[in-house]
């Protein structure tokens, strides 16, 4: 048992602790609305008795030495963090794909979403109109006005193909620019590389601070925020080391973004902005996150699942190219069959147009045929639209008619978009539920803090009273005994 004065010093220590508690509560309340803030708690233990050098063996009752604070710790569940980052990568992927596909669909869509009428206005609709005009021509095969109409409608078809093709190119360029900015930042700063540098800096600061044995709570919160941001762009794997630093890698790739020596390996774009590379030139394996989404849009050719094989802009462009070359070849075969001149010219979808000969002579489609059976001759053009396998895709003939093929261009996009929308909804709700769980563990509840405040304030008041009592006792002993 110590002297009277030890009681005072223990009470004094308690006052300090309660003040600290109130500071921590203050910190929590101030940061109740801060994104990514984990509530903090003061870790206090009751101090054991001061044995003054003796062992615990004693027949004198021992009393503890008050309260002492050990550390300020943050309440955070690392497992939830990991799960959040995984799911956030999936959500990032589908969010980005959803945005891009919305634009892609409006390029090749057959229906106008604001238009109430029952008319297809895209490529398929224009092909229908062309077939109708040819039927009119068959019924009056010498009418040069109708032949002119056929030429005009064919021009519309060619222009539709060209315009769709150029819009796809523009969309692709736009996505490539976006990807470059995501990786490198605008004007050379910001972006993934800048985030990685910041995480590296924080790593250093946290390691330095935690050497003292205390936890760098606020710095960790900052670092966690940056890691969360990064997880939306890529599928990252975060491992914490014993010195408090974290290593950041990409799931499925052996290279590390931030390695165990806290060295940051930046990413870079290749020359035409279609691939993301490590600094040594190898391609980074990025299938998830918004970066994965952009890469898929830029590179996806729809041939095989997996490595950028899903539907992307090249897939749609290839279908347009196949249509342009296949349709032109079929029409020209009929036109030149009797020694006539070609009607269309196209090497790809970007240069499909009517031929120079047709440009200068409105009724070339009739003039090509010198016989008397013009009705039959036009009939061949009409039956082209009901034949199967006119258009070849990737070298092999398709199973449907020309219109089936043009329908499938917009349908391919719409079906994939529908799937993406569903995945986006479900991944959004998964991320939301994990975020709720995180908030439940780490979030600040103002009511709780209010109760804590009252608790510590009462404890503070009580301790003050104890000091007053001890003071009175000392006063009685010193100033009033044996005077």
């Amino acid at each position, binding site marked *: 048992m110590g002297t009277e004065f030890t009681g005072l010093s223990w009470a004094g220590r308690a006052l300090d602790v309660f003040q600290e508690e109130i500071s921590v509560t203050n910190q929590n309340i101030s940061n109740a609305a801060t994104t990514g803030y984990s509530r903090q708690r003061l870790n206090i233990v009751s101090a054991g008795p001061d044995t003054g050098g003796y062992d615990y063996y004693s027949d004198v009752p021992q009393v503890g030495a008050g309260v002492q604070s050990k550390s300020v710790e943050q309440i955070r569940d690392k497992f939830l963090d990991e799960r959040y980052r995984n799911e956030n990568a999936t959500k990032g992927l589908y969010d980005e794909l959803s945005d891009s596909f919305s634009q892609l669909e409006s390029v090749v869509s057959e229906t106008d*979403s604001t238009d109430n009428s029952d008319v297809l206005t895209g490529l398929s609709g224009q092909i229908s109109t062309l077939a109708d005009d040819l039927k009119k021509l068959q019924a009056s095969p010498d009418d040069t006005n109708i032949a002119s109409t056929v030429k005009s409608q064919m021009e519309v078809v060619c222009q539709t193909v060209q315009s769709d093709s150029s819009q796809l190119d523009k969309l692709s360029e736009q996505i490539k620019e976006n990807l470059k900015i995501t990786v490198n930042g605008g004007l050379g700063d910001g972006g993934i590389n800048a985030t990685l540098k910041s995480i590296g800096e924080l790593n250093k600061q946290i390691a330095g601070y935690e050497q003292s044995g205390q936890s760098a709570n606020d710095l960790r919160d900052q670092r966690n925020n940056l890691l969360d941001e990064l997880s939306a762009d890529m599928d990252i794997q975060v491992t914490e080391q014993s010195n408090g630093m974290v290593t950041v890698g990409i799931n499925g790739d052996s290279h590390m973004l931030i390695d165990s020596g806290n060295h940051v390996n930046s990413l870079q774009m290749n020359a035409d902005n279609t691939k993301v590379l490590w600094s040594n030139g190898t391609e980074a394996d990025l299938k998830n996150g918004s970066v994965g989404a952009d890469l898929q849009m830029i590179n996806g050719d729809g041939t095989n699942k997996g490595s950028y094989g899903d539907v992307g802009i090249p897939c749609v462009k290839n279908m347009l190219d196949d249509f342009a070359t296949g349709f032109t070849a079929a029409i020209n075969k009929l036109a030149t069959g009797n020694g006539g001149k070609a009607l269309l010219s196209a090497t790809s979808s970007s240069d499909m147009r009517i031929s120079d000969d047709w440009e200068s002579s409105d009724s070339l489609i009739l003039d090509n045929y010198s016989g*008397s059976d013009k009705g*039959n001759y036009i009939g061949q053009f009409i039956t082209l639209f009901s034949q199967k396998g006119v258009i070849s895709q990737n070298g092999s003939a398709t199973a449907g008619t020309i219109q089936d093929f043009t329908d499938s261009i917009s349908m391919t996009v719409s079906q994939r978009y529908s799937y993406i929308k569903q995945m986006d909804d479900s991944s959004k709700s998964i991320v939301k539920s994990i975020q709720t769980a995180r908030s439940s563990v780490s979030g600040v509840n103002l009511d709780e803090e209010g109760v804590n405040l009252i608790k510590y304030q009462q404890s503070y008041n009580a301790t003050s009273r104890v000091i007053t009592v001890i003071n009175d006792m000392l006063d009685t002993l010193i100033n009033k005994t044996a005077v």
Partner: protein
Amino acid sequence: MRITTGMIADNYIGMLSDGLNRLNNYFEQMSSEKKFSRASDDPADAMKAYQSLHELDEISQYSDSISEAKSWVNNSESTVNIVNEIAKSAQETVNAANSNATLNSDDEKTYEMKLEGLQSELLQTLNSTFSGRYVFGGPQSGPAPFRAGTAAEDGAVNDGKLMIYNYNGNPPSYVPFSGINSSSESSMSLTLPVDVGLGMRTDSNGKVVAGTAMDIQTSSIKMLALNMSGTGCENLYDVIGDAVSKLKNGGMPDLGGDITKLQSAQDGILQVTTGIGEKTDMLDFLSGRNDANSISQKSRLSQIQDVDIEQAIMQYQTQQEVYNVSLSVGSKILQKNLFDFLE
């Protein structure tokens, strides 16, 4: 589970956003009267809608083709009727001339002029046009299908005889009608196929397969030819011409043979008229069937994509109520916490 202030706020924002989303969807449905505005909202139904729209487009085009074909066929029929009238008139005239016991040169002159008049009328009728084409074949920009032969162009034997333009010839040229025999008839025939929804196909030679399109061309050969054999035939024009030259020779010619031929000419024309009648019936039938198809396709399209407007309005109203309620309730929950009640 521990609830924090942040959780409640996030939840609230999320639910408001969802409610607003639903409100927007119902509003879009109401204003466009369609269940989906973009194909990606419902790809399976969108595919069905596309097919329906393609069908509807085809059906409306067939409707146009059928009515065009009908007006052409009707015009052909009237033209053939005129030819029939000419033949009848010629027969009456020749009959009158033949049975006139007191035939003198003036009477003969009268009959000759009448018959020659009928001949030129016949030639004009045979060369009549409609909608930019000659009724009996050939584009209007080309040579007329019939002319009277002259000694200078076609030789003395064909002077005054009916010449027909062989469009299928190599090269195409005028040939005497009387030279058409049973084997050359098919090579000289013309067709005008029209796609009226019978599944038109072309064969490997580029010709429309018979029966898959409607041929609206009336054959002049079938209409005019008489007594066709392996070597040649006679025709209405030449028969009248024959009567004229007999009258010119003077005396009391025996025109009985010509009368018989004129009678059988009318029989031949009647057959052609019957054929045209069948085509008209077929076109009427196709037109009716096309209309019925159009109605059923439209109702199918409506089933696929149209929204039930009353249901859409009800849903919109309900959702609006729900949204309003959640706005007011949420604001109450978010306001109070313990600090409002501490002294």
